Structure formats: C-alpha cells, structure tokens
C-alpha cells in the first residue's frame, strides 16, 4: 500500500482524536513524511503563527517505506514551525517508533491546540486515547518511556516523548524515541511541550503491505545487496559510525573549533570513532559497546557506549553506568571540538543527558561554545554564570551546564535559548555561529565551500542534513569535487537538496545515499506505492518540496537577507590547514544558486517556477 490512507487528528484543546482519510492527491505530489506533512502544515496553519502558541500544529509523519522491508525503512519526521528559527522545522528520527505507528495503521498524526493539563497520547492500532500525564510531567525521557510501558503493561510499546527540556521551553529541545533516537533539531520538542503533550506511545499489530509485493521484495533485496557490498555502508559505518569523520574533517582543516575561531582541533583523535574502539587506560574497556541499527536498517551505524564507571562525571551516579546511545560525530564535535574538550567519557555523559532530557547536542554544544567565547572576552561574567568558569576546554563547565539546561535552572536557562539569543543579549550577535537562528553542525564552510551555501540556504536554518555536499567535496560520493572551490557548488547543493527531500519524504534514512543513487531508490518506492515514482518524477517531487518549504519561510517573514552566514565565516580566514587564508565565498555561489533554482535575485520562486512545480 505504501500509505494506509489514514491520518489521526488530535485536538488537544478539545481532547478529541479523530481518524480521517489521507489526501491522496497531496500524497501523489509530496510522497510522504517531510513533503506531505509540510503540505498539510502549509494548508492548515498561518506561516506567521507563533511557534509556541496553540495555533501552531505538530505533525508526526511516516513515509511510504516506513515499516517496510526496505533497508532503513523506519524513519519518521516531526514537522512544525520551529521556535528556534521561526522557519519551517522538520526533524527526522530513526529507532522503532515510526514503523510502529505505521503498523498501527496510521500514516501521520496531526496535533493541534493545547491541552489544559499534561497528557500523553496512546495509540493502539485503531484506537487513540489521550491519557493524563500529570505525574509524568517533570520527568525525563528515560523515566517516561519505561513508566508508560509498565503502566500500559506492554514492553513492546514504542514511545516518543519530551524530557524536561521540552517542558521548560529549551528552544532546541528535541523529541526522543526508543530512549536515544532523536528528532533532534529546530526545537520540535519545545512545540510539543508548549502543547502540554508529554509523549506518544504506540502499539501496532496490523502491519503493512506494499502495493506490489513481488516487485517490492525484489527491489529491496537488490537495494540491501548494494548496501552490503558498498565499503561505506557495508563496513565503515557499522564499524566506526559517523564518528569516523572526526579525523577526516580535522585533517582537511574543516573542523570548527572553539566557536569556529579555529579550523583544526588538537584533541580530535582522542574523541574520534577510532578512539571509541580503543581500550581505556582506566578500566581496559572500550567506550563503544556495540553498534546498533534502527528499524529495518542493514547499515547499523548507531553507537552504543558505556561510560567508564570511575570517570568523575558518573563516579557517584550509578544510574549512568549502563549502556546507551553514544556520541555520533555531530554531537562529539559540538560538545567536544567546538568547546575545546577532548574527554570522550565526559562527552558521552553530556550526550546521555541530552538524550535523557531531550535536547539537541549540536545546538547545545554550540551555544556553550559561544558562551565560552563571550566569557573569555569578558562579555559574560561569573555573576551571569552563577560562578561557572566558562573556559574553553572545561569539562566541569560543560557537564554542569548540561545538567542545568536539562533542568532549566540557573545559567542553563539562558543556554537553553540558543546561541543567537545569547550572543544578542550579551552584545555580540556576530559570535553566534548560526543561520536563521539555528546552530551550525560540524563542517567549517571555509574548508568545505559547498557547505557554506548549504547552510545559508537550508530551509530549517544551519544544517548538514539538507544537502550533505561533504559526501562529494570530501569523500568523493558520488564524485569527488574540490572542497576549496566554489565552481559548480550551486548545482551540487541544489541536486543534493532535492534528492535529500525525496529521501526524507520516503521513510528511508539519508545515509543510504552513500551507496544508493536515485535509480536504486525509485524501484523500491514504485513497488511500495501506487502512481508514477520514476527517478524523474521523484526529483521533481524533491524540488517541489524544497520550493514549498521556501514559500512557507518567505510567508513567515524570511527574506534573502536571511540566506547568509555569520561574519566569521565570510571575513575571518582559516588559520591553519589546506584552507588557510580562505573565507567562505558565499557571495559567488548564492546568485548562481538562485538562478538555478528559478528564483528571483531576492530569492523568491518565480511564477514560472511555481507553475512548473504545480505549486
């Protein structure tokens, strides 16, 4: 079927749950998940809405391949207007929750209004019920999930929930499912918290069936073979996870360090994927316990770590001595390189806390890094921090702030608002390493030029997951391009953006694209769904989704002025490495990009473009 054709609409203000038919025409035009839910959001809400008001909506959406045998077919996305960026927010997560929603017979859940009291939603196949959550409010994700499972007496129930960060309005609060998989970015968890919705628990026993089972099995078996035989998806990712990048990116001089003052981090090796495999000096055990897959994934890049019990961060806290989701590259970078910290165990602990209370380690780490710079220059004082010595490299500062941010206490409250608001408050807006209010991920745009354009034009604010040109510029996937030149990058970014929009709307994980081309993906979608899902139509769909998001942002008040980078990347040259002396040359790439997109010089899609895309 691909789609069940059924969506669940929950009015939290009225306390009602209703089933309704999926708009099949929209499904044909927007595929699913990211694209389809964005269409719903655009049709149903005012783009100028206050993200944290009851008028904003929060959509949990699966793709047609979610809950299927396609490798990585377990993703879901949360779509809403983001409080961190005031742009469209779309955060994607793996784990098992998305597939479970599909097995319960639903394509998506639209949540509107605001509950008077804390509630959680329990979906058991066709039945959806709002349950009181007064006693869950104030609890972490790690308490909420097992409590709900025990209360409903079914260990097989899957839960997605917010921790205290989402309740406390941390603007980059995420939504966490299966204890450590996150719809992490853009503050979707804060929106959930603003609606007094603590969690969505799902048990699905109805299952799912592709439109053409025989063709689907053939296509997915072929796809899995490609992943298994590819060195990246078959060996590199399962063994080292995304953390294999730490040394690569550092070596090419694109490792943002100490709030992007530098582009190489001398502690990179100590917090790298390789280091996670090494026996620790202290107890002889490796930080990494095993790799883990999300639902349906035959790559299995997830890191499961265990912190050294003797490490000072957890020595007196046995509740953190168990295994859980370890650091991925972005988290290791933000919590580590960006703050100048090279203590892998401390980063793992901070990462645990981010999962436990549901907030994005990228935005959090980057905000701490900005605060450290402000502190070192004297713009923030001990009085502001409550006595925390916010020096680069201070493990104590990082772990204390992680705990305070989770709880919404002290200086943690300010850290919880993100680096843009922090830097504005303390008089140095230029030191906020953000685009559209969202913190950068782990690739310096001076050493990887294409990523500058990626960040500047990303519809959800600075992000690597909207067009991961690192694949081409650094790793040579699908073809090697020079990271230090701007030629051809506009087209590259655009192609990556459109293809990623397709993958994000399908139920698949974007990591498949390290091995799969659209030619590998199309037959799987085609067999799962009715309609025309040729490569050509898929790419057109991707472009349509991108332009729809752009339209939403323009209506929300964004302009071409927001498609920019912080001064540091445009004016301060890299000090070391291959990019030494270089800044990001966004000015060269952006006009070319607008033109390729069929947008005006003001970054507005022309009528011709809109017509072509049936928008």
């Amino acid at each position: 079927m691909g789609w069940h054709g059924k969506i669940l609409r929950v009015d939290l203000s009225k306390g009602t749950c209703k089933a309704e038919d999926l708009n099949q025409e929209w499904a044909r035009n927007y595929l699913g998940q990211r694209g389809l839910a964005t269409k719903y959001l655009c049709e149903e809400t005012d783009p100028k809405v206050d993200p944290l008001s009851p008028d904003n909506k929060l959509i949990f959406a699966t793709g047609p391949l979610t809950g299927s045998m396609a490798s990585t077919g377990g993703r879901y996305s949360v779509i809403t207007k983001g409080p961190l960026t005031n742009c469209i927010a779309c955060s994607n997560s793996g784990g098992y929750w998305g597939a479970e929603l599909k097995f319960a017979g639903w394509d998506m859940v639209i949540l509107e209004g605001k509950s008077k009291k804390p509630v959680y939603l329990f979906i058991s196949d066709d039945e959806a019920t709002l349950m009181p959550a007064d006693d869950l409010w104030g609890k972490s994700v790690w308490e909420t999930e097992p409590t709900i499972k025990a209360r409903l007496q079914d260990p097989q129930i899957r839960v997605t929930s917010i921790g205290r960060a989402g309740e406390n309005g941390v603007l980059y609060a995420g939504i966490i499912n299966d204890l450590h998989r996150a719809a992490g970015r853009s503050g979707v968890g804060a929106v959930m918290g603003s609606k007094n919705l603590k969690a969505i628990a799902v048990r699905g026993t109805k299952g799912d069936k592709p439109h053409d089972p025989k063709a689907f099995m053939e296509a997915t078996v072929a796809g899995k073979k490609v992943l298994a035989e590819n060195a990246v998806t078959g060996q590199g990712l399962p063994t080292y996870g995304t953390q294999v990048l730490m040394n690569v990116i550092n070596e090419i001089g694109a490792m943002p360090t100490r709030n992007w003052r530098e582009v190489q981090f001398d502690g990179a090796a100590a917090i790298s994927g390789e280091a996670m495999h090494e026996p620790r000096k202290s107890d002889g055990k490796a930080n990494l316990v095993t790799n883990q897959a999300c639902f349906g994934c035959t790559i299995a890049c997830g890191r499961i770590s265990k912190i050294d019990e003797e490490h000072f961060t957890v020595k007196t806290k046995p509740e953190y001595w168990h295994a859980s989701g370890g650091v991925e590259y972005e988290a290791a970078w933000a919590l580590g390189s960006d703050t100048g910290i090279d203590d892998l165990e401390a980063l793992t602990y901070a990462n645990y806390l981010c999962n436990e209370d549901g907030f994005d380690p990228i935005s959090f780490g980057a905000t701490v890094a900005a605060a450290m710079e402000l502190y070192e220059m004297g713009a923030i004082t001990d009085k502001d921090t409550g006595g925390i010595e916010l020096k680069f490299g201070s493990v104590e500062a990082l772990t204390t702030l992680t705990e305070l941010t989770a709880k919404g206490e002290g200086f943690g409250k300010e850290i919880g608002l993100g680096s843009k608001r922090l830097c504005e408050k303390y008089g140095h807006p230029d030191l906020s390493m953000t685009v559209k209010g969202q913190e950068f991920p782990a690739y310096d745009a001076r050493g990887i030029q294409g990523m500058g354009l990626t960040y500047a034009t990303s519809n959800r604010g600075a992000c690597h997951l909207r067009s991961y040109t690192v694949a081409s510029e650094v790793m040579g996937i699908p073809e090697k391009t020079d990271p230090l030149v701007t030629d051809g990058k506009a087209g590259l970014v655009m192609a990556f953006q459109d293809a990623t929009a397709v993958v994000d709307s399908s139920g698949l994980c974007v990591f498949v694209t390290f091995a799969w081309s659209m030619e590998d993906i199309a037959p799987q979608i085609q067999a799962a769904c009715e309609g025309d899902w040729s490569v050509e139509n898929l790419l057109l769909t991707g472009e349509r989704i991108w332009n729809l998001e752009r339209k939403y942002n323009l209506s929300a008040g964004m302009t071409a002025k927001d498609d920019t980078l912080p001064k540091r990347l445009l004016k301060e040259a890299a000090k070391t490495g291959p990019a030494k002396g270089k800044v990001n040359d966004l000015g060269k790439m952006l006009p070319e990009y607008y033109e390729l997109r069929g947008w005006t010089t003001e970054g507005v899609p022309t009528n011709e473009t809109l017509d072509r895309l049936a928008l």
Partner: protein
Amino acid sequence: MKHVILGAGPGGVIAAETLSKQGHGGAITLVGDEPEPPYSRMAIPYLLSDIIDESGTYLRKNPDHYEKLGIDRLQARASGIDTKKGRVALDNGKELPYDRLLIATGSSATTPPIEGLDGPGVHHCWTLEDTRHILKSIEPGSEVLLMGAGFVACIILNGLVKRGAKVTAIVRGPRMVRSMMTETAGGMIKRWCGEKGIRVLTETNATRVTHDGGLKVDLDNSETMNPALIIVAVGVKPNMDFIDGSGIETDYGILVDNHMQTNIEGIFATGDVAQGLDFSSGGRSVHAIQPTASEHGRIAALNMAGVPATYKGSLLMNVLDTVGLIATSFGQWQGAKGGDHAEAVDEDHYKYLRLEFEEDRLVGACSVGITQHVGAVRGLIQSRTRLGHWKKRLVQDPTRFMEAYLGSTQPVG
C-alpha cells in the same frame, strides 16, 4: 506382559502411546467408558462455540492411530480391582487381567446438594454427551443459568454467548475463578463479563429448582428465574470409587510416588485422579489440568515399561479464555510464605500481572490480558532460576518477564 490402562483421557492415551513406543513386547489395553474415540475436554468449549465439530475434540485424528500402535481399546467401566490376582472387574461383568495397571480414570463434574437439581433441564458441561444436550436445549435468546464461575464455567461462556444465549452466572463465593486468580484479576474478569452482556452474581446460590411446566429456580437473593437450561459447573472430583477395598492408598486422590506408582507395586495412577508430587509445595496434590495429565502419563508409562523415570512434580498452571479475555495462573500465584511480589494493574485496558517471588526466584504468577511469551513464566518458575538484578527490574515492571527470562538464562551481556 499385560498393560491395562483405565481411562482414555490425555493421561491414558499418552501412557498407551509411550508404552507402545518403548516396544515392551506385551499387550496394551486402553479402557474408556464413553462410546466416542478418546477426546479432550479442553476442546469442548470450542465445540460449543461451533469452531469445531465433535471429531475436532478427538485426541488423535487418525482413526487407525491406536490400532497401528498395537493399542486395544475397550469400552467399559471398571467396577473393582483385585490387586492379589491382578484383575480389574468391569461393569459388563467381565474381568481384565493385568501385569501392570494404570489408573487414569480422571474426574467427574459434581452437583451441589440443591433440591431439584437432579431433574431434567440440568446439565454439566463435561462430556461430549453433556455438550449435545446443551446444544439441543439452547437457541438464540434462551436464558441460561450457569452455576459456578470457575475455570470450566468461564471457558464455556463464549460458546453460550455465541449461540445467542442470555447467560446469568451465579457463584457462591465472593469472586470469579477464585481457585486460580487473585481478587483483582477475578474482579476484572467479572467486569469484562458484564461488558459482554453476561450477568454475574457473586455470593449467590440457588436454593430450589422446580420443574412444573419449565424450569424455575429460586435464588437466595430472593430472585426467581425461569431459564431454558441450567448448566452446573461447580467443580470436579476424582473418579476412584471403584478402588474401594483394593488397598490402594488415597487421600483427595490416589496417592502416587515420584514414579507415579501407588502403594501397590505394579499399579500406577495419573492425571485428575492422581495425587502426585507438587513442584511448588513438595507435598502431594491433585492438579486436574491437561499438562499434568500428559506429563503423568508419560512418566508412568516409562516406569511401567521398566525405564526408570523420576518426576520432579507438577506445576499448577491454567490458561483461561473468558469471552476473549485471556488469563493465566502459575504455581504459587497466591504467594509463598515469606515471599514478596510485583504487581501491575491497568483496569482500563483489562491488563493485570502479578508475580510472586521467593528470594530472587519466581514461584508463581497470575495474569490477565497477556498472551505473548507467557510460557517463559513457567520456564522461570520450573527452572528455579535465580533472577539476580532482574528481580529489581521486574518489581518495577513485571511485564518484562520475557526479558528477565532471557537475561537470566541466555548470554546477553
């Protein structure tokens, strides 16, 4: 060597098959007093529900099954045993000589001493013959008075409801299935029955039944009913009257040792009639349940065939489907002396689980609404597995029993 097996229920049949497989070289005679091929009482509710026909209740489906294994079947009822001469007296006047005897005569449904309850229109639901009577007596809209709310009463409810009967169940005691479920679980089942349109009256008894122009039942709550049919399901008792004077030791049932042998050499007993080793208490109990009958049958037959086999005791366990609500109980579900427990109750969703521990070992359990992996509860109890740190986790969430089972018995980390 002549092997005689009295009773053609699961215990008797499995014993006969086991003897046959052992290749003892002698004769096997399986004696049953009902005309049908050996069948299972466990299947009767499904006959009532029209899921199967009578042949669906048969223990073995192949008509040649017994013949092929060299098992002679004889329809008769034992009326006495001469242990000196090694002969069983039958109700047809014949005598059956034996070298080894297995008493697997099972149990019968009992009738409480209530005036008029022995008249027409009153049936048990224990045999195929009973079932035929019931099926003849009810049609859509018929009012049925079910006396009893125990295991048997509960499992036949679905069939009665499905046939369109309007059922009122009365029970003397304060709750349903009190012999296998806790108060909370019994209450849940009662509420569920109510939701399915079944009237359940606890602490209620019939005082008199009259038959003038249809059934009339007086209840002690001063209500009077005119049911089309009364089904009596208040309990069972071992069928062992015929051994009176034989010298075979009895208590509640026939006492057997851990080889399933009675006090008299060469005479064994199994199943509902046997009072054998109780896994939980270490004493001897009658566990009138299907798994015990089949285990008993196998162990007894091995010993009869000269293959020494020692029984470790039967574990009380039941699974109950009350109009779709599934409940189980295992072992010491009421708790062990000095033990502790974990409990989860979700009245809204009809879910319940109680685990009983002795130190860090599971010794009993009782559940409602849980169908997946329940066998692992038995596994944990019967292996006397030390749960270690899993006990704490089970106290927090008893529904993680399958993980606890794997975590305690498999290499998980």
